[in-house]
């Protein structure tokens, strides 16, 4: 995080919150005070288990979901209170790639129409021919043969469909793309292709990614920085190498321990796994979110929210055990 030439973050959130109102007045804390920074041409990996609010976080940053509280800055500009109309212009700079390559494409539109859609919305080109031409170039760029231009999405496999989604996200020339688990619905062989494509595109176009995933091996491969989320909270944030070498938060530790290791000497040995279930994100009480499953839990952990502290330069953790050292 230190050798960065570009000082200004592309995206920055300050204490971002998204609470969903449930029936009966209960509040679901999907995103609960997240601070993050994404720098140009870098990837921030966001990991966490299902339901920890990582997808909601991505969508809230794009303002596809209205944040409840906190601030979102894009290139230093506060876009938190932007209306739908104001956001339209920002859509050119911030895009999203979806998890499910089947549901995110309209089955009634041909491939080229799907890719060209955003350009038509923004009147990027004057004529239809120019727009389709650009769509064809995008197909080349994402490695999708032009012969599929008039096909319909259901005729293609998952990998090709995900390439359509990527081409569409690229069509407006964005600076940042939220990748919402873009490979988790794909075969392992195709996952690698798509990940390579995303990294190639990052090199070529200087894109910043916010890469949401639950797959630690994927996130290690692609990220500069990694943020670990637990129940809407960011528990640890540091560079990818640092996280794998020196995990500080007990939850991160447990996550890394859960990666299967192809090592015969470990056979028969008991693994340290976290026990219990995720506590409910509804009407969360104060205190560390991880307290109920944490082997190092103290009384303090169940009463007070741990602060998000920079332990070593660029390495942030919110845990009393670490902070008190």
């Amino acid at each position, binding site marked *: 995080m230190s050798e960065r030439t570009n000082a200004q973050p592309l995206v920055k959130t300050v204490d971002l919150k998204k609470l969903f109102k449930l029936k009966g007045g209960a509040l679901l804390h999907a995103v609960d005070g997240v601070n993050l920074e994404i720098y140009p041409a870098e990837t921030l990996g966001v990991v966490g288990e299902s339901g920890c609010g990582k997808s909601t976080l991505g*969508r809230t940053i*794009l303002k*596809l979901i209205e944040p409840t509280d906190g601030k979102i800055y894009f290139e230093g500009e506060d876009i938190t209170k932007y209306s*739908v109309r104001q*956001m*339209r212009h920002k*859509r*050119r700079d911030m*895009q*999203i790639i*979806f998890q*499910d390559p089947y*549901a*995110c*494409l*309209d*089955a*009634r539109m*041909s491939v*080229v129409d799907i890719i060209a*859609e*955003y350009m038509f*919305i*923004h009147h990027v080109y004057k004529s239809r*021919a120019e727009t*389709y*031409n650009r769509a*064809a*170039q995008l197909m*080349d*760029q*994402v*490695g999708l*043969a*032009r012969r599929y*231009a*008039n096909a*319909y999405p*259901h005729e293609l496999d998952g990998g090709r469909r995900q390439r359509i*989604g990527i081409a*569409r996200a690229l069509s*407006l020339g964005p600076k940042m793309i939220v990748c919402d688990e873009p490979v988790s619905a794909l075969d392992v062989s195709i996952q*690698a*292709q798509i990940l*390579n*494509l995303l990294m*190639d*595109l990052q090199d*070529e*176009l200087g894109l910043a990614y916010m890469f949401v995933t639950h797959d630690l091996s994927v996130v290690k491969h692609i990220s500069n920085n990694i943020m670990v989320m637990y129940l809407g909270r960011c528990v640890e944030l540091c560079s990818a190498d640092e996280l794998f070498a020196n995990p500080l938060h007990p939850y991160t530790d447990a996550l890394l321990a859960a990666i299967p290791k192809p090592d015969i000497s470990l056979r028969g040995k008991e693994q340290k796994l976290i026990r219990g279930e995720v506590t409910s994100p509804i009407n969360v009480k104060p205190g560390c979110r991880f307290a109920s499953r944490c082997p190092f839990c103290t009384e303090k952990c169940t009463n007070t929210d741990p602060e998000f502290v920079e332990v070593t330069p660029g390495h942030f953790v919110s845990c009393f055990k670490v902070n008190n050292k």
Partner: protein
Amino acid sequence: MENTTNTAAAVDNSEFSFKRASQAKEIWRRFRKSKGALIGLILLLIIVGVLLFAPLFISYDAAIESDFANVLAKPSKEHIFGMDGYGHDIFARIIYGGRTSLTIALIATVTSCLFGSALGAIAGYFGGWVDSLIMRSLDIFMSVPDILFTMAVVVALGANAVNLIIALTLAYFSNYVRLVRSQVLTLSEQDYVEAARAGGSGNARIILKHIIPNAIGVIIVNVTLNVAKIIIYESTLSFLNLGMPPPQPEWGMMLSEAREFMRPAPHLLIFPAAAIVLCACSVNLVGDGLRDALDPHLKS
């Protein structure tokens, strides 16, 4: 496989043309594949053709002038479908009646579909108080019996074609509101709608470009079923003297007039009923074919 990508500069800039059939041609190509749909279309074209060019081979006078010598006459060479209780030629009445009945039924179907679908789409898409307002108003609306409502409209405005269309539209639009609303509720949760929003799509564009095209299959089926229903409903109105003023012929009215003579002269009932069935069948066949043709999943 293809894991290398060209750099932006290296993308070839030559004119790229999509050899693409127009949307209409595509749909027609798929429509043609279904035999039933083609038969329905041909039937419908014949019916429309006959009704359209009726004045060339039979005069309107035959339909409204009484020939009391031939009251209830059986089908014969001069009167191929026979005569009715007032001595009108049934064939002529079916032809001219069809012109009014079908026109009214088709227009009322289209208007009720457009009006109902628009309301349903708005209610389903925007949700919240808009939804509540529309759906609760609809509940009030539907708590008044259809027939009473239609009667009120026709009595208040007078019985003529335009008012009948208004009355029928009001009687039938509520189906579409509920149908389209439920479709929209499901469809607007889809990822591709969110993708469109992420691309800067406005609500109108999302509804028109993504939601309606995906809901169209269900709507079309309902439309085709409604054409026949509306023809029958017209007969109910005629029965209550709220249809087209006599002696102007109309299929529904012919049916209700035929009731009295059902035993001695069944041909009074059979021919107009057959005409309604034929129309309903052809519209249904065309509707089914159209629904399949509009769905790219079924493209082989």
